[in-house]
């Protein structure tokens, strides 16, 4: 499978704690993206990291990418109850025909307890 695989499948933390989610993949990528999905809703893009980047920040989010290990992590600092959602990584592979697509993993379900 070329999809990313998130770990853990579910994570429950107290408000104020940090949450770390991991994504592993098996092929070379152009970029890796993280999305959030609130229950029953569509996905919202959080952050994109290109294959030549190692770390990116956006507000309370920090994403790292290790292409040698084919893995990425998403860190949410000082979590809030409103961060409760499922988080998906998506990998952009591309191919010789130029049809670049995103392939999603199964997601990590984060619960932040007030």
């Amino acid at each position, binding site marked *: 499978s070329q999809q990313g695989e998130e770990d853990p499948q579910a994570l429950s933390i107290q408000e104020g704690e940090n949450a770390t989610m991991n994504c592993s993949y098996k092929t070379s990528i152009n970029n890796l993206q993280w999305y959030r999905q609130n229950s029953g809703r*569509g996905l919202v893009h959080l952050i994109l990291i290109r294959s030549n980047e190692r770390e990116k920040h956006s507000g309370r989010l920090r994403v790292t990418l290790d292409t040698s290990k084919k893995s990425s992590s998403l860190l949410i600092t000082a979590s809030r109850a409103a961060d409760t959602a499922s988080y998906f990584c998506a990998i952009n592979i591309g191919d010789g025909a130029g049809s670049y697509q995103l392939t999603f993993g199964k997601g990590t379900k984060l619960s932040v307890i007030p």
Partner: protein
Amino acid sequence: EADIYQTPRYLVIGTGKKITLECSQTMGHDKMYWYQQDPGMELHLIHYSYGVNSTEKGDLSSESTVSRIRTEHFPLTLESARPSHTSQYLCASSESGYTGELFFGEGSRLTVL
């Protein structure tokens, strides 16, 4: 807030009915996609389009069909719905060229009895 809209949000129909899920975006994006997602599961790409009159099947085989007659509109049709089609269908769009951020609609949850 993404300018991509899906209707209906919820649909319950009987087996054998024909249904069309609508998706429209006002961002002028060339690329549009349909993903299927079962509860708590990953998204599977079922159709995509790189522009008007361009449609391709995705990784997951689907009995649905799509059309792209206008840039902003990418409807999905099931000619004869079955209980196995019960799922959430998510429409998305992105700018042309290098695949970056996808903008998703709120989804259409289909239940076939």
